[in-house]
Every structure is written in structure tokens, then in C-alpha cells.
């Protein structure tokens, strides 16, 4: 039993789940009805109008209503939205036991101790039927969920099924209903609209409860005889099917589970029992210490049950609904029903893999709880609570998942939890302080004692375990047996590692702790609702689900809601903005969310301002929450860009010190207060212009004057005098003139203001004698006396250092937001600048190293003296080094038992033995035999061009493995054609550094160089091909033919190019030039090249006035349908000219009508029928005099020597 919620209260007699909201009603013995939110665990409302115990309560399916019935004989219908009772139905004459709404009609059925059942219409608020027949208290009555039936249970020891079909017919139209009002009484005792269909007798004592099966024609009842009985009915009769015995006291309530094939009952014996409805056996009993149980209720849609007892109620679930799953790379493995399935995210494909053991039906909640998957071994560990904790190890079939008749038997074992700790090792929690590590054969490899008592273990990277104890988790290293980290947390239920294994999220019931890989605490999140699951996204944001929401958690602990959920979901993996969830039915559901908010916050957090900017520009990120967030996090300048409201904008601008923006806003708002604040900020920043402007706008003349004084703006100051005069502001005028130092003005002001003595004093002190005298005359007697002995001087304000303008500000680069957002110009290059610099530095270093080496290499080479090192020389190793006969004395003790094995055969030697391919001999380092083979097969005599090839192929045949420190490295032979299924210890042929595809690439390069007219370069390519081919090995016959073809192709090019190069050397021999050009056209070339050769020959001949020959080339050129227009045009022109004058100026040794080949050495035509000799390798033709010479085309073989032919594939030998 999984308790989800519990309350403490007076005895609970009635319970009802709300069908949509997480609410439950509990009616108490004290007369109160409570409305609880069982998810949040809060009391939403209480309804206290009944007098005495309330035994029955029921929510309406769709309306905001519920009904209750109590010992005050009253049925009350309530509206929970209005928090009040709507009306009361009176009629019962004794306690009311149960009340229930009909699922579609506006009816309520009630059962009462007055031995009747009544059906009420809550719309007309009348009783529409009274069902009589029981002759004792009716303990319960309920409608059938679909049919027109009512079942009731009574202390008269019977269960009755009532047919209310007639009642239904009568109320087809509402008019009828009203009509019926009058008739009701006449029907009162006739009871024609509700008749007893069956009376079920069988219980020996009073029956407390009876209820219908939701879909089948079954009834279950519980009675004071401590028995639960199952009844079946058909159209005509009903009979007892079976009795479930086990309760030790009165059975108070019993019902069928809606989703599983079980019956749940509770009793005054303080237990809840679960029964298998098919096998009719007890599955489980949950006992409570002190509380007798009174009522059961099932949620109409979800897998929830509630039970009321003496001291409150509990909301519970019988079985866990979280599907066991394990994410690995691109797929998630999970259990649905009795099968292990896999879902591949990238292709969104769901596959059923293997059946897994059906949970033993003798108890509940034994299904798979966790999964652990090892991708390399394709093995799955399924853990369940079966037999007090056990696991099954399944090795998945490799390729065909399909119908598994050959599914391997799973290996089983017991243990608290089991999980893979390495690809072929898993750890099993044997007891609270011992873990054993097992291999895939389910054999214990080792045991480890844990440092503390642990109740579960979780994955924590290869070789590590996360151990959960009561109030903490520790990171335990299985190999070293030490604790790497320790973290105090509340009881951890699930552990989710980030992909890089750098961070871990520990999920508890109501909190999430994020820690790093050493379990150092990063942040803690608290939730009021249960946390269900979570996963890390690619950016390091933790996305999790609660019962009701998908939420995110940033690395700094900030969290927020992404999406609301209707039903609980278990996140498995996150790809970008798609969250893959498993629901409770084991279905994978991709949920696409808007990740903007958290990505934005993350970017801010990581200071990725460029990203922040692009997000601001591109997306709609608005709302007070975001602004508040930005402000709170110290980014008012960013928030500025989200705000439309000018006042907020103004405040943000001030906060971020962006005076221009503030000014903009202030202009739009144009309120005194805002101007004032702008002025204050501008003053703080020393922005005189704006200060002035702000003062002007606020008409704060005194400040303005002082501002002008400070900034030394005397012109404006004198204007201020005038303004003050106009405004009749004497004091201001006086101040201003004081600031300017205008004595005359001051005197005038004082005089005008009637302060004649002061005016006089001012005038006389400053030496304005005329005025002083005039004033003295006016004052007459009252001329004040001037202080003696003092010298007066005019007080002139010092001129400011800087006149007017703003204060100089330090040049600071504008924030990325200001610059970037306003002008949409990014200047994010600064960061990269540095990086680039760093690279330069490194590049320089490399250069130095290189220089150094180039200098030194020759030295090293010189130092090398020819030392014989025959480590790999295959033949030589055969003479064994026999161990010295005299072992050292001290070592005898050890060596006496030791018979040192004779050294085995190096792989290279095996290669040689098996092979008659020259390349493989060369790879093995047996150059001698390799050469002999080549000489025999291809008549090769000149090996010097092959030197580097031999060396490369030899060097590429072994890799080097540093094994034990300071000991000599192991060289390992690289074999060709590796495949996963190759059996070990069977040596394959050596991997060769040259392969056919490389040659093809080279051929293309050669073609390209030819087209471009880079003949020596092209010749180099073709010769390289020709030189490499003897060391090529291919796998198939077809490829052998291709290689042979390649030789011919390349040979032709080599010959042609050699002739062409020769021709270019012979500048002063036009005859020979023409001949060579002509022969060139008879090499087998690619069409474009042939065209070029023809064009070339044509031009040469034409220039030499050999028009007839030129014409033949022109004709041949036209026959190739040249694509280039100018070629065609030229050919036609020449043809045209030649036709007029068909003759040759010079005779050439060239008869195009007579087929010929060109001698590779002397470049003369060898016409058909003439004797020639060939190169055994490249098959170039030569005049007989060349017999025994080195082939000038391939530069390898001896012309005319015997050879067995190219051997380049093992297939040729077999």
C-alpha cells in the first residue's frame, strides 16, 4: 500500500473523490464535512450544518455539487463553489446511511435506517420514488454505473437489486416529471416504478455494504458475518458465486477495483484486505494499529483509493504506477505490461523485446521497479520487490528482437537493488551493509562492505555507487572501497546524472538536490507537490516533473514552470525542446515545450550575452515576471528592452544608468517627479546638458541658476536674471545677479524692493558713487555708515575649470546590450581576438620545433651506424636463442620450477609463411623474399624506386602499445579486413598502407594535372601509381582485373607524357616533334586528353606545313565531337585549308592507316607484324634491341624477361 495522504480527525464515515480535481470529501461522525486537496495536503473547506454524524457524502460527476446525508434525517445538496448548502431534502424518518448521485439523471439515491431507499430528483427537489422491502436498516444503496439498477444492503441479512427501468421511462421528458408529482403518492406503496429484481440471501448477519462491478454483472457484499460474498446475476436470476473469508470482524465496506481484477474490503477488525477477484483468494492485508475501518471509496478515474477510519482517513494506491525505465544513448528501455520494450528516440520506433517474468499474483506491487542497462553487453537488469527484493538479468538477443522463442532464461538473484557498475559488472545490495559485484554469469566477483547502513544503491558512474541511507547519500568507490563524497539530504528516491556525469540530481519526495560529481552540494529546490522525475537537457538545465507540472532548474537553483500537466509524466530524455516522457500506461509521449525562458535565463547566467541578444531580438519574451527576474538578477539594462510601459522603462533606465533611455522615457511621461529624478541621476553622472534640461522642465530656477553658475555658463545666467525679473522673483533675480557679479543690477533690485539702505551700501561699497549719492540723497538722514578700515572687493564667482558641456566620462565600451541591440551590430569579436592570438603563439612554437628537427635530423642520421638489428627479420628468428645453461645461484629457488617457454612465432613470420604476395612479405619486413617474388612475378629488376614504398608498408604493419611503464613497448601486428566476428588467435593477413582507392585518387589527380597541362606533375602521379601497384593487394578477382586495367591505363599515359615531354625538349627538330606529337595521339587516353593531344599534333603539323597529316588529326578531332567550340572551329578551319592543299611538307615516320604501337624507349612506331619485345610488368612494347634493358616506362622491370604475371590478390592463389 502506498499512502499518498493521511488526515487526523474524528471518525470518518463517508468519503467521495472528485472526478477531475485532486479533492476528496470526508464526512465525519462529528457532523462536519471536510474538503481536502490530497495532492497539496490542505484542507480546502469545511461544511458544518448537519446535526450529528454525517454518514454519506458524494460528489456530482460534472456539476459543482455534492450531496450529504446524516443522522438528522436530512439530505443536503451543496454547491462547493458557493460554499453553501443549496437545499435540504426531507422525507427519511431515521438516520441516513448513504447518498449517491446518478451518473446522468438528476437523481440521488439514499439509504436509511427507516428501512427505505429513496430516489430524489435534485432539480425538482422532490422524492420521486421510495423503495420499500427491506425489513431492517438499509446500510447502503447505490446506482449501477450503467444500467437502471440499484443495489442495496440491509441488516435484514439480504442484498437487494432493484429495477428502476420504469422510473427512468417516466422521466423521459421533464414535463412528465412535473406530471408525476401528483401521482407520486398514489404510487407510494404500489412501487411499480421501482421493483425488487433479486433478493440475495446468504449472509448470516446484517449486510453492511454491497456494490456493483463497474463492467461485469457482479455484485460484492460485506456483512457482519465477517464474510465478503461475490454474486453473479443474469437477466432472470442472481446467485452466490463465492465467499471470501479472512476478516475477523464485521466487514464494513467492500468494492471492486476499477482497473485491476481485485476486490478491496475493509472491516472493523482494523484491516484492509485485497482479494484476487478471479481466483478469489486473499492477496494482501494492511492492518492498522488502533483504527477500525468504516468506509472505502475508489477514485472514478485514477488509480486511487481512500479509506475512512476511527481517527481520520487515508488516500492510497495499491500499486506503483511508475513504469520502470532506463535511458541509454538514443534509446529508452522500459517495462510495459509483461514485456521489456525499447524506444529509439531518433527514429521514434517502439519495439517489444522480451517477455519478463509475470509478477507473482500472490501479492501486489511486485512489478519491476528499476531497470539498468549495459549497452555494450546488451544486458538488462530488472529489479523488483518480489521476494523481498530481487533482480533478473536478461541478455537481450543481439539482432532480431522479434518473436522470441529462443529467449534466454533470465538469471535471477535476490537483493535490495541491482545495477550495472561497469559494462559487464553489476552490483547487488545484499544486505544493508554489503554489496556484491557480479559478472554476467551471475557469479560473485567480489564483495564489498559498505561504510554505513544503506537501503538502496544507485548508479554513479563506472565503478562507483551512490548509496542511500536514511538521511544522506554517499558516493562509494567499489574498487578502492572508499567514500568519495557524502551529502545530507532527505530520503532520495531517484537519482539522475547529467550526460557528462558532472552533475547529479537527487530527487526526494518534495525536494531536488543538485550536486556535482563529488556530491558537493550545488542547490536545493523545494516543491510543495511531489517530484516525479527529471532529466538533464544538453545545456545543463535540469528539467523535472511534479505531479502537475514540468519545471526547470538552472544550475544556480533558479526554477520555474515550463508547462502544466494533466496527468503525471515521467521524463526520460530531452532533445532540444522536445521532452520525451513515459506516462503511467507505459506510453512514450514526446512533449514539445517552449524552452525560451529557461534557455534565456541560462544564457544570462552563463553570460552568453550574444545569445541573450539574439533571443531578445527574435522572440517574444515579455511579462512582468521576466522583468522582475532581470531586475532582481542585476540585469536592469536587459530588462529595459522588454518593457513597453514608459514608467517602468524609466525606472529601469535610471537603475541601469542609461541616461539617454531615461531621457526618452521622461520626455514621453513628462511629469515633474520623473524630470526631477532624471535630473538627480544626470547630476550624479555629470551630464550637464540633461541636468539643465531636467531643471528647465521642472521650472526649478534656483537649481538651474546654480547649475549655470557651477558650469560657468554666464550667458544663460544673465538670461536667468531676466527670466526672474519677468517672473517677478526678486530673490531669484538678486541671487542671479550676485552670481554674475553684476553690482548695478543688484543695487537696482534692492532699490526696487525698497531696501534703500542695502542698496546704498551695496552701491557705495562697490564704488558706484553716482548711484550711492543718489540713494544717499533719497535716504537723507538714514544713510547707514560704512564699516571702517575694511577694503571692499567685488565677489566674483571663480570661473569653473570646465565651462559648460558634460563632465568628461571614462571611455567605457558600451554594454553588449546597448551597442548590440540598438544598432544590431555585433561586436562579439573581442573574445575571439584573444583566442586567435593564443593560437598564433602556439603556431609559432610548432614552427620552432620543426626547424629544430629539420636541422638535427641529418645529424642523427649521420650518427647512426649500421647496427644489425634483426628483431623482425623473419627468417633469422628461426634460430633459437637457447637459454643459458647455468642459472644464477640465488635465482635457483625461483627458477627451478620455471621452464621458460620457447619464444613463439611472430605474426610477421606467419604472414610470410602463408603468403606469396610480395606486399605481404614486404609488410613483414622480408624485403628479400618480397623482391624475389616481384622479380619472378613481374620481372622487376630495379627496386630502387620501390624503396620508400617497401619501408612504408613495413612500418605500417605494426602499431605500438606502451604496456608496463619503462618496459619495452609491445609492437602489435595490424591485420587486414578486421570484423567483429573474427576469431581470436587466427592470424589474418597484414594491413597494408596502400590500397586501390588511393590509387584511384591518384589517377584522378594525374588526369587533372594532364588536363591542366602540368605534364611532369602528371607523369609523377602516373609513375607513382605504376610503382605502387606491385605492392597492392585486393580482395576480389574483379578488383584484380581492375588493377590490371589500371596498369594499362597508366602505362599509356606514362608513355604519352614521356613523349610529350621529350617533344618539348626537341625545339630544333620539327620532324621529330611532329612525330612525337603524332604518336602521342595514338596512346590510349581519356577523350578530353585525346582531344588535347590531337589539337596539339594538329597545330604542330599545321605549323610545319604538313597539311595532310594535320588534316587527319583535325578529322580525328572532329570525330570525338569536341565540346569546346573553339576546338571544333579550329579543326574545321585547318581541314578547310588542308583540303585545298592536301600534301605534307616533310615526310614523317608516321602512317596512321597502319596500326602501330610506340616503342617505350626509342619512341618509334612498331607497326603490326613487326617484331617487338614487351615489359613483363607494364606490357609496354619495345623494339627488339631493347631486350634485357630496364623498361623505360615503368622503370622497374627488365624488358623481355620472363614473368609469371601480376599476383595481387589472395584469390588468385587459391
Amino acid at each position, binding site marked *: 500500500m502506498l499512502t499518498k495522504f493521511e488526515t487526523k480527525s474524528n471518525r470518518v464515515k463517508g468519503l467521495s473523490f472528485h472526478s477531475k480535481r485532486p479533492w476528496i470529501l470526508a464526512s465525519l461522525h462529528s457532523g462536519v464535512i471536510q474538503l481536502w486537496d490530497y495532492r497539496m495536503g490542505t484542507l480546502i473547506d469545511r461544511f458544518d450544518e448537519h446535526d450529528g454524524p454525517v454518514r454519506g457524502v458524494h460528489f456530482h460527476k460534472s456539476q459543482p455539487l455534492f450531496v450529504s446525508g446524516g443522522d438528522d434525517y436530512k439530505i443536503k445538496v451543496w454547491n462547493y463553489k458557493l460554499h453553501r448548502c443549496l437545499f435540504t431534502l426531507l422525507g427519511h424518518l431515521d438516520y441516513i446511511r448513504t447518498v449517491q448521485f446518478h451518473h446522468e439523471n438528476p437523481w440521488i439515491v439514499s439509504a436509511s435506517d427507516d428501512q427505505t431507499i429513496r430516489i430524489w430528483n435534485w432539480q425538482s427537489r422532490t422524492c420521486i420514488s421510495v423503495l420499500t422491502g427491506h425489513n431492517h436498516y438499509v446500510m447502503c444503496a447505490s446506482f449501477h454505473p450503467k444500467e437502471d439498477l440499484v443495489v442495496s444492503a440491509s441488516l435484514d441479512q439480504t442484498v437487494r437489486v432493484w429495477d428502476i427501468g420504469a422510473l427512468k421511462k417516466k422521466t423521459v421528458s421533464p414535463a412528465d416529471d412535473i406530471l408525476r408529482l401528483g401521482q407520486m403518492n398514489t404510487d407510494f406503496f404500489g412501487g411499480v416504478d421501482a421493483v425488487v429484481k433479486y433478493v440475495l440471501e446468504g449472509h448470516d448477519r446484517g449486510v453492511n455494504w454491497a456494490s456493483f462491478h463497474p463492467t461485469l454483472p457482479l455484485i460484492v457484499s460485506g456483512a457482519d458475518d465477517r464474510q465478503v460474498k461475490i454474486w453473479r446475476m443474469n437477466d432472470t436470476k442472481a446467485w452466490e458465486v463465492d465467499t471470501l473469508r479472512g476478516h475477523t470482524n464485521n466487514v464494513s465496506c467492500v468494492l471492486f477495483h476499477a482497473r485491476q481484477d481485485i476486490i478491496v474490503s475493509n472491516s472493523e477488525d482494523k484491516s484492509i484486505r485485497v482479494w484476487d477477484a478471479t481466483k478469489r483468494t486473499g492477496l494482501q492485508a494492511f492492518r492498522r494499529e488502533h483504527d477500525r475501518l468504516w468506509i472505502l471509496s475508489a477514485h472514478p478515474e485514477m488509480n486511487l483509493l481512500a479509506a475512512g477510519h476511527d481517527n481520520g482517513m487515508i488516500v492510497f494506491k495499491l500499486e506503483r504506477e511508475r513504469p520502470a525505465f532506463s535511458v541509454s544513448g538514443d534509446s529508452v528501455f522500459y517495462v510495459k505490461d509483461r514485456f521489456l520494450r525499447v524506444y529509439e528516440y531518433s527514429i521514434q520506433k517502439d519495439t517489444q523485446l522480451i517477455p519478463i517474468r509475470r509478477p507473482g499474483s500472490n501479492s501486489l506491487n511486485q512489478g519491476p521497479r528499476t531497470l539498468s542497462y549495459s549497452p555494450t553487453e546488451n544486458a538488462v537488469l530488472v529489479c523488483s520487490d518480489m521476494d523481498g527484493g530481487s533482480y533478473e538479468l536478461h541478455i537481450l538477443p543481439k539482432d532480431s528482437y522479434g518473436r522470441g522463442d529462443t529467449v534466454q532464461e533470465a538469471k535471477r538473484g535476490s537483493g535490495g537493488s541491482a545495477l550495472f557498475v561497469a559494462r559487464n*559488472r553489476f552490483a547487488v545490495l545484499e544486505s544493508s551493509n554489503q554489496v556484491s559485484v557480479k559478472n554476467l554469469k551471475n557469479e560473485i*566477483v567480489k564483495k564489498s562492505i559498505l561504510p554505513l547502513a544503506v537501503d538502496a544503491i544507485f548508479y554513479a558512474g*563506472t*565503478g562507483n555507487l551512490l548509496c542511500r541511507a536514511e538521511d544522506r547519500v554517499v558516493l562509494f568507490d567499489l*574498487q*578502492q572501497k572508499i567514500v568519495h563524497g557524502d551529502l545530507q539530504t532527505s530520503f532520495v528516491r531517484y537519482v539522475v546524472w547529467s550526460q557528462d556525469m558532472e552533475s547529479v540530481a537527487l530527487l526526494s519526495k518534495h525536494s531536488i538536490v543538485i550536486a556535482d560529481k563529488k556530491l558537493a552540494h550545488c542547490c536545493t529546490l523545494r516543491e510543495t507537490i511531489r517530484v516525479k522525475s527529471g532529466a538533464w537537457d544538453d545545456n545543463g538545465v535540469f528539467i523535472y516533473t511534479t505531479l502537475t507540472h514540468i519545471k526547470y532548474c538552472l544550475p544556480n537553483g533558479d526554477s520555474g514552470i515550463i508547462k502544466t500537466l494533466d496527468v503525471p509524466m515521467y521524463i526520460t530524455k530531452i532533445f532540444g525542446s522536445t521532452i520525451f516522457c513515459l506516462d503511467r500506461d507505459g506510453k512514450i509521449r514526446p512533449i514539445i515545450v517552449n524552452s525560451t525562458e529557461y534557455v534565456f535565463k541560462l544564457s544570462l547566467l552563463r553570460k552568453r550575452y550574444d545569445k541573450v541578444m539574439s533571443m531578445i531580438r527574435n522572440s517574444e519574451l515579455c511579462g512582468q515576471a521576466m522583468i522582475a527576474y532581470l531586475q532582481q538578477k542585476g540585469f536592469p539594462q536587459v530588462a529595459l528592452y522588454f518593457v513597453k510601459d514608459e514608467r517602468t522603462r524609466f525606472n529601469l533606465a535610471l537603475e541601469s544608468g542609461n541616461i539617454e533611455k531615461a531621457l526618452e522615457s521622461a520626455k514621453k511621461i513628462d511629469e515633474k517627479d520623473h524630470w526631477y529624478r532624471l535630473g538627480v541621476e544626470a547630476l550624479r553622472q555629470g551630464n550637464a546638458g540633461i541636468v539643465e534640461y531636467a531643471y528647465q522642465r521642472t521650472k526649478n530656477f534656483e537649481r538651474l541658476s546654480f547649475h549655470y553658475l557651477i558650469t560657468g555658463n554666464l550667458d544663460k545666467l544673465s538670461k536667468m536674471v531676466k527670466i526672474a525679473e519677468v517672473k517677478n522673483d526678486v530673490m531669484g533675480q538678486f541671487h542671479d545677479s550676485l552670481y554674475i557679479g553684476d553690482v548695478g543690477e543688484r543695487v537696482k533690485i534692492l532699490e526696487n524692493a525698497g531696501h534703500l539702505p542695502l542698496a546704498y551700501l551695496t552701491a557705495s561699497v562697490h564704488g558706484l558713487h553716482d548711484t550711492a549719492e543718489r540713494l544717499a540723497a533719497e535716504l537723507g538722514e538714514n544713510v547707514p555708515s560704512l564699516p571702517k578700515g575694511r577694503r571692499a572687493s567685488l565677489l566674483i564667482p571663480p570661473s569653473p575649470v570646465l565651462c559648460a558641456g558634460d563632465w568628461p566620462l571614462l571611455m567605457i565600451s558600451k554594454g553588449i546590450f546597448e551597442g548590440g541591440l540598438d544598432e544590431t551590430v555585433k561586436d562579439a569579436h573581442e573574445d575571439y581576438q584573444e583566442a586567435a592570438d593564443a593560437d598564433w603563439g602556439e603556431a609559432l612554437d610548432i614552427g620552432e620545433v620543426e626547424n629544430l*628537427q629539420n636541422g*638535427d*635530423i641529418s645529424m642523427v642520421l649521420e650518427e647512426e651506424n*649500421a647496427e644489425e*638489428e634483426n*628483431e623482425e627479420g623473419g627468417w633469422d628468428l628461426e634460430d633459437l636463442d637457447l*637459454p*643459458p645453461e647455468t642459472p*644464477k645461484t*640465488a635465482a635457483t629457488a*625461483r*627458477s627451478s*620450477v*620455471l621452464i*621458460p*617457454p*620457447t*619464444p*613463439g612465432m*611472430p605474426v610477421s613470420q606467419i604472414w610470410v609463411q602463408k603468403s606469396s604476395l610480395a606486399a605481404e612479405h614486404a609488410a613483414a*619486413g622480408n*624485403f*628479400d623474399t*618480397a623482391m624475389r617474388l616481384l*622479380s619472378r612475378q613481374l620481372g622487376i629488376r630495379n*627496386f630502387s624506386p620501390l624503396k620508400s614504398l*617497401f*619501408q612504408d608498408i613495413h*612500418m605500417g604493419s*605494426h*602499431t*605500438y*602499445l*606502451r*604496456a*608496463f*611503464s*619503462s*618496459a619495452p*613497448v*609491445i*609492437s*602489435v*601486428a*595490424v*591485420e587486414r*579486413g578486421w570484423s*567483429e566476428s*573474427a576469431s*581470436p*588467435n*587466427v592470424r589474418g593477413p597484414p*594491413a597494408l*598502407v596502400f590500397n586501390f582507392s588511393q590509387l584511384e585518387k591518384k589517377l584522378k589527380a594525374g588526369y587533372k594535372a594532364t588536363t591542366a597541362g602540368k605534364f611532369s606533375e602528371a607523369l609523377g602521379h602516373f609513375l607513382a601509381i605504376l610503382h605502387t601497384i606491385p605492392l597492392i593487394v585486393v580482395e576480389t578477382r574483379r578488383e584484380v582485373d581492375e588493377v590490371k586495367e589500371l596498369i594499362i591505363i597508366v602505362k599509356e599515359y606514362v608513355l604519352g607524357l614521356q613523349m610529350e615531354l621529350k617533344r618539348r625538349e626537341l625545339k630544333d627538330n620539327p620532324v621529330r616533334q611532329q612525330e612525337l606529337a603524332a604518336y602521342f595521339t595514338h596512346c590510349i587516353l581519356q577523350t578530353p586528353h585525346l582531344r588535347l593531344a590531337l589539337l596539339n599534333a594538329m597545330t604542330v603539323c599545321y605549323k610545319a606545313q604538313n597539311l595532310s597529316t594535320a588534316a587527319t588529326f583535325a578529322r580525328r578531332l572532329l570525330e570525338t565531337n569536341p565540346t569546346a567550340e573553339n576546338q571544333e572551329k579550329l579543326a574545321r578551319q585547318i581541314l578547310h585549308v588542308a583540303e585545298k592543299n592536301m600534301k605534307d611538307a616533310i615526310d614523317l615516320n608516321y602512317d596512321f592507316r597502319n596500326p602501330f604501337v610506340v616503342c617505350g624507349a626509342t619512341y618509334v612506331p612498331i607497326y603490326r607484324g613487326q617484331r617487338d619485345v614487351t615489359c613483363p610488368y607494364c606490357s609496354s612494347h619495345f623494339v627488339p634491341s631493347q631486350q634485357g634493358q630496364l623498361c623505360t616506362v615503368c622503370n622497374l622491370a627488365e624488358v623481355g624477361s620472363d614473368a609469371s604475371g601480376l599476383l595481387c590478390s589472395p584469390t588468385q592463389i587459391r
Partner: protein
Amino acid sequence: MAAGGPDPLFGLRNSFYLGAYQAAINNSDIPNLSADDAVERDSIVYRSYIALGSYQLVINEIDSSAATPLQAVKLLALYLSNPANKEMTISSLQEWLGDPAIGNNPILRLIAGIIFMHEQDYNEALKHTNAGGTMDLHALNVQIFLKMHRSDYAEKQLRIMQQIDEDHTLTQLANAWLNLAVGGSKIQEAYLIFQDFSEKYQMTSLILNGKAVCCMHMGTFDEAESLLLEALNKDAKDPETLANLVVCSLHLGKPSSRYLSQLTLSHPDHILVKRAKTAEESFDRAVQTNA
């Protein structure tokens, strides 16, 4: 080793085995070591220095009063630092091995094994190492047998190691060596072992090289190249990285001469350099015989 409390030298040893020599040296300051552990610690540190090529430092720091294992380590440093004088080193090694009081010291025997391996006198090496006793010795045995191309014997040694501690780093490493040597499907297992290491511990050029070698044997030279370049980033002078880069570049048809000259310059004794030299000579010789 299988029982007992946490091993204070675990991390140090692991770093050493996996080629994180500098890390081993840096993290050698472990408090509360027993005398034996301290000597072992020092020997690992000095061997790390040797692996890094700082022979002289080792020779200078270990004085004549140091414990036998350290003296043995010093011998190794002497041997490797001064090839001209190796006869003397070997003779003193033989002398010590003959001394019944210290001749049985596992580290001395280990060093003897290493030195005789360098001498390519595998029988002599085995005489001292074959009896085993420590994981190091067993691992060295595996390597000696592999050098002798006797993977069957190597496998037997590996079985012994697996019985002692299957998850020991050296057991895993030795398993990988053997897998590589026997080839075929085992290469993938070797790759997985190196893969495990790379997930579990910090990447070292040894692990990267191991992975790269596996890749080359499996024919994925592109992946091998990227691994090796990563290794080269970590340590531009690592001889195996350079040697394997030469091989890998050859197979990819890329120029390899730079790596080869770098290797020749920094490690003229490396087996690849020797091979290249030998190849050149034997080519010339073969040309003459075939002329």
C-alpha cells in the same frame, strides 16, 4: 589486496599504471602512510620520473642509504640513462639478485625483469618475475610472454591476475594487451577496456594510444587519427603517440615523415625508428642480393 581497508596508494598506483605520471608525482603527498607504503609510494614516484625521462633526478635523489626497492629503481634509472654503461648496471643487478637478503624483493625483481626485457633476454627476465607475487610482476610477465609471442602463456598469467583481482587496473590493462595481441574479436574487447578507463579516469596519452591502436586494428584509421592527435595535444613528445601517428598516417595516405623525424629526434631508440633503420638496411641488402 582483495580484503582490508581502503588502499591509500590506490590513486597513485592507478595514475602510474595509466600513464598519468605527472599526476602520480603531484598527488604523492599522502598523509599517514606506513613505512612500507611510503617506500612503495617513493618507488612509484621515482618510476614515474623515470617514465618521464628524468633519470638524473632519480639517480641523484636516491642515495645509498635508501631502501632496496628504491635502489632497484635507481638501477633502472642508471640502466636507461647510460646505455654505454649497462654492463656495469647489469652486473650489480645480478649481484643484488644473488643476495638472499634482498634478492627476493618484488620491486627488485620487477626492475630486473624490465632490464632483462630491454636486453631481450626474456628467459633471464622470466627467471626473476615468473614467481609473481605482486600485480606488477604478473603484468610484466604478461608483457614478456607477449614479447615472446606466447599469448597462451600470457593468457595463463592473466588468469592468475583475474583470480587475484579481476577489476584491478593492471588486470584490465593486461587483458587489453593480450586481447590486442591475439586479435580478432578480442580487439573490440580491448577497445572497451580502454573505453572504460577513459570514462573512469582522466584521459592519458596511454589510454588514448590504447584506443587508437584498437581502432587501427579494427581498420578505423580516421578515428585512430583523431585520438592520436588528441594524445599529441596532451604530450607532444610521447614516443608511442608519434610512432602510432606514423603508422596511422601511412594508412591514411597522409604524410608521415614529420612524425617520424620528430620521433627519431626525441627517441632514437624507439622500436619504430629501429625498424625504419633496419628496413632501410635490409632493403639495400636485398637489392644487392637480387641485383
